[in-house]
């Protein structure tokens, strides 16, 4: 039994980019930022970390990248213990509020971080040009960072995080300050990165963005992981079939499903955990009573709805207080 557990653990390390079993962080002021975090990110996936302000997302990322010293940590990153120095050369990181030196050009900045992770000079130069092209900054490559907009600096940050061809790239709010076109481009870059087998750990407030690119997500609330898994799995419970029709709501509707009034005189009839086939009789009944059916579709809770549910206090119905609690 012990052998099989060990094997299972080794196997888990082999397939996990990040495997955290217990992470605690209490800051000097007594703020308990992380409370027993357990999280697993598989290799080659895009993993999204969500949470309200002060939930501990950035602290968690900083623990993994050794910027913050954990109070307690059990787990691995790329198969090695957290804090293992050589492993850091295989990680790319873009901090949330980064401040790159204004005296460097975009190209110098990317090359500098390449050197800091041990990328050989000739390869560094080649990679810098490739990445600057990828993030759309080649034309600005030899201008100083001090002259860049926030979005342009963000692109340089992404290129810098990728210069060492990392196995795991951690991006904290990568689209912060980037215009919609840029966001789309960054999203494409992330998908390209995944195509090459690199694991992406994405920390973002933009739920729509996360929903579009992430394979799996975790929601953090007040220093704890509230939910984690594939988006489809997390929203499975909310799956329903929805019929949209015009006209008055029939009296029998409330008996077969939930009715919701919509605009332009329409109503939606929702059947939780139903299938398209199982609602066909209801569809026929609506038509037979002269109502016009405008749509029939499977629906599920959006990531935003799921997120809001997790960050809302069920007793008060209001959002949980911002930030982590002070340790007692």
């Amino acid at each position, binding site marked *: 039994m012990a052998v099989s557990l060990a094997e299972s653990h080794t196997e888990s390390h082999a397939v996990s980019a990040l495997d955290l079993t217990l992470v605690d962080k209490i800051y000097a002021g007594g703020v308990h930022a992380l409370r027993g975090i357990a999280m697993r990110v598989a290799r080659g996936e895009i993993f999204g970390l969500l949470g309200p302000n002060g939930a501990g997302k950035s602290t968690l990322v900083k623990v993994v*990248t*050794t*910027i913050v010293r954990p109070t307690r940590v059990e787990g691995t990153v790329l198969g090695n213990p957290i804090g293992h120095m*050589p492993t850091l050369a295989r990680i790319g990181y873009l901090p949330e509020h*980064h*401040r790159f030196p204004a005296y460097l050009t975009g190209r110098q900045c990317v090359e500098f*971080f390449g050197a*800091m992770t*041990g990328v050989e000079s000739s390869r560094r130069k080649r990679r810098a040009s490739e990445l600057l092209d990828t993030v759309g900054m080649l034309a600005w490559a030899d201008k100083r960072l001090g002259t860049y907009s926030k979005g342009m600096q963000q692109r340089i940050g992404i290129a810098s995080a990728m210069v060492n061809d990392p196995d795991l790239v951690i991006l904290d709010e990568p689209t912060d300050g980037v215009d919609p076109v840029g966001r789309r481009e960054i999203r494409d870059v992330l998908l390209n990165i995944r195509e090459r087998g690199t694991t992406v750990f994405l920390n973002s407030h933009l739920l729509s963005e996360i929903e579009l690119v992430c394979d799996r997500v975790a929601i953090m609330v007040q220093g704890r992981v509230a939910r984690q898994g594939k988006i489809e799995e997390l929203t499975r419970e909310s799956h329903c079939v929805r019929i949209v029709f015009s006209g008055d709501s029939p009296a029998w509707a409330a008996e077969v499903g939930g009715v919701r009034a919509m605009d332009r005189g329409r109503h939606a009839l929702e059947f939780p955990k139903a299938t398209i086939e199982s609602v066909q009789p209801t569809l026929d009944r609506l038509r037979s009573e002269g109502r016009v059916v405008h749509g029939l579709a499977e629906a599920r809770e959006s990531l935003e709805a799921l997120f809001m549910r997790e960050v809302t206090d069920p007793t008060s119905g209001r959002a949980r207080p911002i930030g982590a609690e002070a340790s007692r």
Partner: protein
Amino acid sequence: MNLQWMQTSALFVDAYRELNARKLFWIALVLNALVVAVIGALGIDEKGVTVLVWHLEMTGVNSAIFPPDQFYHTLFASFGVGFWLAWISTILALLSTATIFPELVTGGVDTLVSKPISRHRLYFTKFATGLLFTLAQVLVFTTLSFLVLGIRGGVWSFGLFIAVPIMLVFYSYLYSVMAVMGSLTRSVIASVIVTLLFWVGIWAVHAGEQFTLLGETVQNVEITAIERRLENAQTVVGRAPLEADLANAQVALGVWRPIHLSLYALKTALPKASETIQLLNRSLKQIADVPTPDDDEMNDSAVAGRGFLGSKYARRRDVQAAIERDMKTRPLWWVLGTSLAFEAALLGFGAWRFSRRDF
């Protein structure tokens, strides 16, 4: 190229770019060159001093008294090192490098510490990059001075280059304070102010130690002189005032000595900036073979020095000789070793705090 070397090179290149982007670096470099140009513009001949094409006749200052090589060596030692490098150039260097550590802990520190480099190595490498500034400044100043001495003085004195390591060590005392303060407070202004206050503080301790050493030495010389007179005194009447003076001198010595010992102990624990500069001056004077004041001059001073610090019998010549003997007992390791030990302890503390910090 291994990873450590690659990272160190990258940090040094980055420091060069940072300095290069700062106008103050180039201003300081140009000022260094200008100071040497001023020294080079001065000349000496058998009639007096020349300034470019102008000639100032001076009876006391001419090449018969000061051969040109000694003239330039003295200018380099007294004005170049004693004034320019030890004060103005050092202040310029402190101001120019003041942002390095506050920038490190507030700027891109998170990106840097997430790379495979230990925080200790990052801290010490950043410190070394700050020293680059002084290295560049002193190297330019010394090289130009070497050329001036060679071309104008006719002597190619490679010994001048001793100024480079000594000034670097001198600057590192102050820069260590600024580095630690910068990384602790994250404030450029606070780190500069504390460093300047520290500089004033160690200068005050040095001045106090030297003054109390003088006081103690005067009393020691006084006691020796009185005891010699007592040996020769024949009558009780003649001995009485001497014995009273001896008792007074012993009481005074009892006051001076503990104060001096306390200041000496304090100074031992602190960087010895003044002694380090004196070390350089002594080396330069030895290279230049500048003569010390002759005995006649000393005798005159000795007469004039009677009554110094309440003494009646101590002669200035004897006091000065005793102080020189005392100063010679202070070895090089005491001047540089204990200063560098202070610096190492301070930087060790700074690096330890930096390595324990969350960013």
